[in-house]
Each structure stands twice: as structure tokens, then as C-alpha cells.
């Protein structure tokens, strides 16, 4: 193969990314999962023969940074290369080897060229259902969460393992949809294989992957080198359940390496909010990428200079059988924590704290028919030295609100007001973004079950450089404060007000 010049490399690379994106577009189109279609809760990755990533689908959310290549390596440890045959497809949803909760199913398939494995196609996707209890923060251990699939071969030389398929089908609520999505994942892997074959004729994928990783790694190292060396610290907390959950983060910048340690954070909890190391890494790496080098591509090279650690048994490194279905509730808070830790040294890019999304889910029966509807709501985000914080923007996940008209079509509620909670953002030279004021009236003819997920209910998002904190969120039933951790039964005429927190300000006002 001829040496890769800056033009050929760009072309080959672009083509690989476009193949991955083509497979991902085909996958999204055929997926049953609303989270896949509305929130891009999936990823498609092409790795080399050792499971090192070369290209990842562009649309995927940050949860999947670095996870799939690690999963492929776990597959390889269980099924060494010499045991793999063309047409083999492997599957697992082990949170520690996958993406941090069992709702994501990982699929990987070896790609052969001239009888040798040259690559892996891998797809991870949030399933429409995985059995167990409906995802909820109150779940105590992984057994309650649903079906666990260890590393197994789903297809053996192209032949499906019908026992395994039957087993999965019997354990989920919507077997056609869950199995349908798994088949769509396999189809995406096959499409990637087919698209890659012509390229393999005259391209050394290992060399190409090596060059891509090297360039990406160099860009990230360069970005880290621009940060003054030192050890930086930040602490924040989640409202928690019986008591708050502490997030303690220490960022060490040493030359062109950046290490994040979570020692001092709370121990793991018997709730579904534990964050396994692979997810701890994914969201930490997202924070570093967004803060220091947003243009760096999503591949293993970019994240080589970054490492994360947390003591075993802590909230960021829990022991089996910890539950982790709602890992994002705590995991999302790593992002502002890292940004706060680095605020003083990257002042130009520093952002005050904001908060992640809240939601209300209502279920019941109205006029003889069951209903279930969820409305996500977002909060104010933190200010920077250049601008005010965003009013109600989803961060760091990316979930849109439910239109009032859709919410009222789906459930017997009337939205009285959806407005900006003016003045809730922290004061400062630049103000924190405002949160939401959302008020509904129940119009159901029988009792309505309501479950609210609220965050930043007790702990306000902090400002930076002298900016004031934002206001905490609030939850009122008929004018009285109520606890979001409880389940509530609402009756006709009840009014619920949900207020999300404002973001922190930047600079003294």
C-alpha cells in the first residue's frame, strides 16, 4: 500500500465514516425504539481486528464514547479470533462490558477479508424493552432490572441460535420490537461489511486505522498540553434519596495526559443510579472533548490521553449486582463537575453549572382506556465569560420536550402554563439561563398515577468567578411542596407545578 498523504487519508477516512453513518441511518429508520429514533440512543462503530475503533457514527450521543470498542475487546477475550467464523454474531448487555445498563444491547460481527479477520462491525442500541421492572431509580439490584445476556454467540456461522432468541423473546414485554431491533442491529453490521469489502481490496485497514488514531490522539494531546499542568478539584452533589449523593472529582493534568479520579464520591447505593466504569469514562471523556477539543473525531485515539478512576464499591465503580438503569442521573453530573474543576485554568471556555433534565410520567385509565405519557423538561444552563446561560436547553443528554398538544392527546391533562421561569438563572456579569415553569391540571375521570424525576431540587447549580447560583427546582401539588421521590396519585382538578432549576451565573453582577 502506498503511503497515506493528507489527501488520501482524508478521503479514505471520510469514506469509512460515511459507511458507518450509512449503516446507522438504515438502522435508525428501521428501529422500533423511540429513544433511538428521537434521541439517537445508539451507536455504530467500525473497529480494527484488535477491537480498536476506527470510525463511529456521527449522530450518537456521548454515552457511547469509547464503549463499543471496549465491548469488542471483551468479546475477543471470550471468543478468541481463531474461534470466530464468517457469519458469527456476538451479543451482550452486561453493563460492565457494554454501556452501563442492561437496556442497551451490544452486537458485534467479525469482518473477514481473504480468510482473515480485518475488522469488527458493532452496534449498540437502547431496546424498546428488556423485561424486569419499568426503568426507575428506585430499583435495588440488577436482577430487578430485567434480562441479563452474558457474552454469547447469537449467530453461529450465519445460523441463528433459536434457543437464545426464544429466551430473549419470552423475557421482554414487546418481543417483536426488541427482537426486531436486534435483527436491525445485525442488518447494520452486515451492511457495514458489504460496504467495506470493495475498500479492502486496495486498503490496508490496520495501517489506515493506525494513522487515523495517531492523528486524533495527537490533536487531543495538543489540546491537553495547552492546559496548565496541575491538580484541580471540584465537588457537587445530587439530591439523592435518603441522603445526597456526593460527586467528588479531581482532574490531574500532566503534560499531554489528563486523569480524572472520583475518590471521595459517595459509595454505591441500592438504587438504579450506579455508574459503572465504562460509563464513568464515556461522560468524563465527553466533558474533556467538548471543553478542550470539540472537533476531535470520536475514535479511540482521541481518548487515549484521558483516563478515569474511582475506588471499587463507589458510585462510579460499583460492585455487581448494583443496579444502573438510571445511571445518567448521576453520570450527567460528572460533566459540570469536570468543567467546574477546570474553570480556573480554561477561563475562556469555562461554564457555570446547569442541570440535566427532569420528567413527569403519568399513567392510568381514562374513559375506559389505559394511557401512559411522559413529558421531559429541561433546565437553565450555566453562563460563560462570553454569554448568558441557555434558557432551558437539554444538557448533557439531548431530550426534547413533549409538545403540549401531543401531551394532551396522549393523557387526560390540561397544560395551564409552559413558560420561562424568569429570574431563576443566577445573577452575574453574564446571567445563568432560566428554568421552566410548567403547570398542569388533571382532567382524568379516575385516579392518575404520576411519577416525577426532578434534579437540582435541593442543591443549586453553582456560578463561577463570583456569579450567583441559580434557583433550585420546585414541585407543588395544589400549592404545597411535595417530594419528587414519592409516587403520587392525582385526582381530577389537581394542579401540579414543576419548576426546573436556573443555571449558575458567571462573574460578579
Amino acid at each position, binding site marked *: 500500500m502506498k503511503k497515506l498523504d*493528507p489527501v488520501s487519508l482524508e478521503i479514505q477516512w471520510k469514506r469509512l465514516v460515511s459507511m458507518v453513518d450509512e*449503516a446507522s*441511518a438504515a438502522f*435508525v429508520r428501521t428501529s422500533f425504539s423511540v429513544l433511538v429514533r428521537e434521541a439517537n440512543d445508539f451507536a455504530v462503530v467500525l473497529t480494527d481486528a484488535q477491537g480498536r475503533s476506527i470510525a463511529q457514527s456521527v449522530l450518537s450521543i456521548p454515552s457511547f464514547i469509547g464503549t463499543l470498542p471496549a465491548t469488542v475487546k471483551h468479546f475477543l477475550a471470550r471468543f478468541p479470533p481463531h474461534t470466530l467464523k464468517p457469519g458469527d454474531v456476538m451479543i451482550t448487555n452486561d453493563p460492565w462490558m457494554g454501556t452501563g445498563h442492561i437496556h442497551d444491547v451490544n452486537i458485534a460481527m467479525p469482518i473477514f477479508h481473504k480468510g482473515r479477520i480485518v475488522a469488527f462491525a458493532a452496534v449498540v442500541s437502547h431496546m424498546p424493552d428488556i423485561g424486569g421492572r419499568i426503568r426507575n431509580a428506585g430499583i435495588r439490584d440488577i436482577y430487578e432490572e430485567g434480562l441479563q445476556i452474558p457474552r454469547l454467540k447469537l449467530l453461529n456461522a450465519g445460523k441463528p441460535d433459536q434457543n437464545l432468541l426464544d429466551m430473549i423473546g419470552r423475557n421482554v414485554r414487546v418481543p417483536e420490537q426488541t427482537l*426486531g431491533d436486534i435483527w436491525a442491529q445485525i442488518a447494520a453490521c452486515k451492511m457495514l461489511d458489504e460496504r467495506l469489502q470493495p475498500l479492502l481490496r486496495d486498503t490496508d485497514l490496520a495501517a489506515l486505522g493506525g494513522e487515523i488514531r495517531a492523528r486524533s490522539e495527537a490533536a487531543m494531546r495538543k489540546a491537553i498540553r495547552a492546559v496548565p499542568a496541575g491538580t484541580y478539584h471540584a465537588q457537587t452533589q445530587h439530591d439523592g434519596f435518603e441522603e445526597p449523593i456526593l460527586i467528588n472529582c479531581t482532574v490531574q493534568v500532566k503534560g499531554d495526559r489528563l486523569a480524572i479520579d472520583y475518590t471521595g464520591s459517595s459509595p454505591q447505593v441500592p438504587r438504579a443510579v450506579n455508574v459503572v466504569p465504562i460509563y464513568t469514562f464515556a461522560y468524563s471523556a465527553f466533558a474533556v472533548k467538548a471543553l478542550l477539543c470539540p*472537533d476531535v473525531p470520536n475514535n479511540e485515539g482521541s481518548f487515549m490521553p484521558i483516563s478515569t478512576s474511582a475506588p471499587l464499591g463507589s458510585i462510579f465503580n460499583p460492585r455487581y449486582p448494583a443496579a444502573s438503569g438510571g445511571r445518567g442521573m448521576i453520570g450527567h453530573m460528572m460533566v459540570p463537575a469536570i468543567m467546574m474543576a477546570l474553570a480556573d485554568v480554561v477561563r475562556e471556555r469555562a461554564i457555570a453549572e446547569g442541570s440535566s433534565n427532569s420528567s413527569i410520567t403519568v399513567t392510568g385509565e381514562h374513559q375506559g382506556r389505559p394511557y401512559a405519557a411522559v413529558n421531559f423538561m429541561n433546565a437553565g444552563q450555566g453562563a460563560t465569560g462570553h454569554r448568558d446561560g441557555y434558557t432551558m436547553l437539554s444538557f448533557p443528554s439531548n431530550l426534547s420536550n413533549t409538545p*403540549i398538544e401531543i401531551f394532551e*392527546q396522549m393523557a387526560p391533562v390540561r397544560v395551564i402554563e409552559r*413558560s420561562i421561569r424568569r429570574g431563576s438563572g443566577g445573577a452575574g456579569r453574564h446571567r445563568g439561563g432560566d428554568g421552566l415553569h410548567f403547570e398542569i391540571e388533571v382532567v382524568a375521570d379516575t385516579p392518575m398515577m404520576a411519577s416525577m424525576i426532578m434534579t437540582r431540587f435541593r442543591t443549586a447549580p453553582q456560578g463561577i468567578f463570583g456569579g450567583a447560583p441559580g434557583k433550585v427546582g420546585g414541585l407543588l401539588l395544589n400549592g404545597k411542596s411535595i417530594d419528587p421521590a414519592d409516587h403520587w396519585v392525582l385526582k381530577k382538578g389537581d394542579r401540579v407545578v414543576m419548576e426546573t432549576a436556573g443555571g449558575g451565573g458567571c462573574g460578579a453582577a
Partner: protein
Amino acid sequence: MTAGKTKVNRIRIAVDIGGTFTDGLAVIAPGGRIWVSKTLTTPHDPGEAVTSVIADLLKQITAARRAAKPHVTEVVHGTTLVTNTLVERKGARTGLIVTKGTRDVLTIAREIRYDLYDLNLEIPQPLVAEDKRLEVDERLDAQGNVVTPLAAAELDRLLDSLAGLDVAAVAVCLLHAYVSDVHEKQIEAAVRKRFPRLAVAVSSGIAREIREYERMSTTVCNAYVQPLVAEYLNRLDARVHDLAPGAPLRIMVSSGGFTSGKAAAETPILLLESGPAGGVLSALNTARNNGIAEILAFDMGGTTAKACVAVGAQPLIAHSFECARVSRFKRGSGLPILMPSIDLIEIGAGGGSIAHVNNLGLLNVGPASSGAVPGPACYGLGGTAATVTDADLMLGYLNPDNFLGGEMKLRTDLARTALAGLAAELKLTPTAVAWGICNIVNENMAAAARIHIAEKGHDPREFAMVATGGAGPVHAVEVARKLRIPRVLATIAAGAGSCLGLLAAPARVDRSWSNPTLVAEIDWGKVAQVYGELRADAEDELKSAGARDVTLKWRIGAEMRYAGQGHNVSVTLPWRNVTSALAPALIREFERCYRRFYGHLVPNATPQVITWRLTGCSVVKRHKFAWGDARVSAQAIMRGKREIYLPLKQKFGAVTVYDRYSLKPGSRVAGPVILEERESTLVVPVAADVKILPDYTVAVTIREFE
């Protein structure tokens, strides 16, 4: 000369205002001969360029056909005026009337980020300031029942507040107005009565679809451009009347049809994508004339490149899109518009895309563009950055003396200087950089098209590519090779492609009505009544656009899903009486479409209709066009040989250059070859069979892939 010998030529004229040029095209019947005209767009008064183009066309025709008396039967118009007004935020001061409790909906929008990694996103600002939004105490429920009536005193209070707003236009968008327009109608009537000069747009009249933010955004955009567009169309009508008395003015709309000037003035948001829609229709007309039904329309100009998939000779239609994006290539960064539109995607910034070295040390092209001014370095208008056009010139694909038929001389020296800078930075030869730019931009466009095609559930290899736009035929063969599309067609008059499309367009109207209901529970009497109203209204509009009853085709559409799902599947049926007998046909068609998209059905799920649609269209005819001026000659003219870069040989080689229109239908030449015409150049840099079809379309069958 006796009266009997005077031949009356019926002439139809199309004028398309683009970012840089205003193109005009006249076709004469019988015979389908065409003339083209081109002039610089006149942004201070866009109608000026329209006038000069029409005048020039009439002059050309009169000169060519002395004996005949030109009679203009219609003028079809496409314009970027609406798009530009929204992008530049130059519309009217606009007010907004909403249901109590929803004043902030326009600001809150959907709360999602269009780029996950950009911490400093620019959020598109609403077109109506917060202090120009009025809440009114009224309420409907999701079934359209009145929960809080609109009291007379409340309406008076609203009108008084409106009087104090100092606005030239007002949008009205109330909750659940997609299912019942009762309160919106009351407000509209009261506003029109008290403020007869105010432009009014009501959501139930503009986009009767569920989702309040998107409907509000659409209604606001419409109100915002209404005064300006109404004035523009009025003046244009007068201008056309002066040049061609009695010729009605038809306006091209985004969905790929035309409507009357009156309808366009009332719902100007329909015009958003009118020019690009014309390009697609032109490609489709060419494909139809040659018996091809599955195409990828590829249009590349100086500032934009677009692609569109057409299946069964029909372009795909999207029912929502975005305008005025703050980040050009990022989905979600614009203002949502709920309007049927030909499903075009922007796949690049065209010939003006600028090349640079990125932070990984690699050559990149775009998304930054030199625009029309200063343009590529070789234009000699002050641009210094190397662009795709500069690379095309260096590679021999463009003839410096034949740009716009030689009117604009391209400066090879300036292109070389611009490329030399990059070459030094990358330690490559200028030729390697030039080919790199060309190859990368082709790869980028192919990648964007590939993903778009996959989203629509197709395989690129099923399609033929039809190239339009000035730069389309220059890049088409290479982009097709990357997509493994075996066949490329180059239409005639590629440079004025949108205009040919405007003349091939049918009259078309679209109406919609959201009323989410399980199919089993549909109140067919009510649906029939609404369809009756929609159709009567649509017929009026089509008649005012000059369509006749006998030639109209009506289609019933429904956006359907299984209850509880988040995405719709579009179902379309030919018109039939709306009764409960429609239900089984609707479900059958839904299941057929669902199976095609998702592979299989969802057992035990309940189908639901979210939005009803009605489309009326005059029958699409095949239009045969042929040059009216003296381009076509009796024998093939070889303009000699030119050194061009041959990508598979990775070196320059001499290829034959033909004057495109000197090649008669039926002739065949072999690639590599170049076919030049006044407005464009067809570059075939690899082995291929090149054939001239009966309508002078060039068909390239590619023989070499990678």
C-alpha cells in the same frame, strides 16, 4: 401578408431569481424551442432583473422568428425572496397572538441541541420579540371542544392591546387549532375588521398540523414575510403586464407545483424552496422523456449543491423542513416549517467551497464558502482562498475562455497562486492539492447523498443521476462513481435548469388537517365534511392558478402510526369518496408502507391517523424542449484536445473537447471526453459510453469504477 399566414407563437416564460444570477427561459409552442437569458440578480429590487430577462427573451425570439407575433401565455416564477428575507431577518415587524400560558413557546422551542459537542451553540432567535406576543384567554381541548369560550370582552381587550403593538403583520396560533379553527377564525375576523391593513396569518389556515411550536413557527414566518412578498408580487404583476399584457403570473411552490400569484401572496411561506424545487422538476422531466423513473437529482451551482431522490418518477415530499439555519449544514439549527416540500438536501457549498488544512493536518473542503463575492480566486474579484472552482480550472475541467460562453474570463494564474499556498503547507504538488480538493468535495457530496438515500430506504445503485446547475455536470461522473451509480444524464440548459423545471411543473395545492384518532374510531361524517371544505378551497386556488377541472388529479393522504409510536408513516391513496369504506384501504396501504420501511408489522398494535392530507395536481405532462437559438449545428464540432487530469491514471492526459450541441441525437463518443456548452461543461474523466439522446440529453454510462 394575409392574416391567415400570420403564425401566432404561444410563449411560456420562466424566471428564477437565484443568489447570484437571475435566469430566464422561454419556450415556444408548437415545437418546444427554447431561448435562455441570464443576468446578475438585483438585490435592491429583484423585479428589475426579472424585467430585463423577460425583455431580453422577447427580443431574442422576435429576432429569430421575424414572421411570428409573440404571444406570452404565462409567466412562471421562482424566487429566493422568501428565503433571503428570513435568513437576513428583513421581514415586517410581527406580532403574535397565542393561548394564555403559551407566550414563551416560541422562545422555548424544543429544548434540544443541534450539535452535541459545541458548548457555545448559536440558538436561532424567534422572529417575534417577547413584548409583541399577546395571550388570549380561551381554550380548546385535544378533541377541539371549547373549554374556555372566547368572550367578547376578552376579544376587545386583545384588539386594544394589538393596537398598541406597532406591527405590520400578526400571526395567530392557538392550542389545538389544528383540530378546530373556531377561535382562530373569530380572532382573524375581528382583527381584519379593525385593522384592515394589517397582514394576518392564522395557524389553522397555514399549517393545520399538531405540534404547537412548529405550527407557531410556520405561522410566524408566514406573517413575517407577507407584507414584503405581497408588495413584490403586486409590482411584479404590473411589470409582467407591461411586457406581456394578459399573461398571468404563476408562482412556483416548494412542493413542486405552481400556484396563483394571489395564493402565493397569502401564503408566501409556500415559496421557500421554489427555485431548488424547479431544478428537481427539470431533472425529472428529462428522466421521464427518456423513460427513467428512479433518479438522484444532483444540482451543483456556485454556492450550493443539493440532492433529491425521486422514485416512480415522483420526487419525495417532506412535510416539514427548516429554513434560515444559523449553522448551514446542521439539522435543527433553523426555524421549523410545516409545509410540503420536495425533499431536497443540501450536500455541499458548491464551487465556492473553500479548501483548508484542519487541526489534524489533513486537507478539508468547506463548509466555508467564498460565496458569489469575492468568489473563487480565479474570478479575479479579490478572492484569495483556493476553492473547488479553482481546482476544476487547474485540472483542465473548466476552460478559462468558455466560462459563461466566454463572457467571464477565468484567471488560471490566480488559481495556481491560491493552490500553491496549500501545497506548501501540505508538502504536496499543486496538482495533487487540486485533485485532492476535487476528490474530497466529491467524496463529501457522495457521503451526504449516500446517507440521505439510506434514510429513505434505498440503495444508490438503483438510481440514475441527473445533473443540473453550472457545476453539476463538471462533478457528476465522479460523484456517481463514488456512489456506484452507473448512469449519468446531463439535461440541456443545465445552467438554467430551474427554469426548465418551472415550465414542466404542474399546478398543485396541498391541504392538511391534524385530528389524531384511532382508525377504528374515526368519525367519517366529520372527516368527509372537512375534506369537502378543503377540496372546495383547493379547487378555487387551482382554478385561479389556471388549472382546469378535467386535468386535475386528487390524492388523499394520511400520516399514520401505531398508537403510541413517535414517528409517522405517510400513506397516499387516489381520491375516493370519504366514507367508512375508506378504512380498510387506508389500513392496507399503511401496512404495505410500514412493511416496506420496517420489514414487518407490529402484531396487536392499533393504527392511528394523526394528520389528513389532500393534494390536488394537474396531470404531469412530458415537456420536450429543444434549442431555439443557433447552438445546434449540422455536424459535430471538435474544439480540439485539452489536457485534463485523469483520476484513474493519476496524471494529465489529452482528451477530445466537443461543442456539446454540435453532437446530434444518436451520436456516440467514448470517455474520457469533455462536452462544452455555454453555461456548463460535462466532464467525463474515465472510460464511458457517451450517447446523445433524442432530446439532446447526454447519457453517460460509466465503464470504470474503483
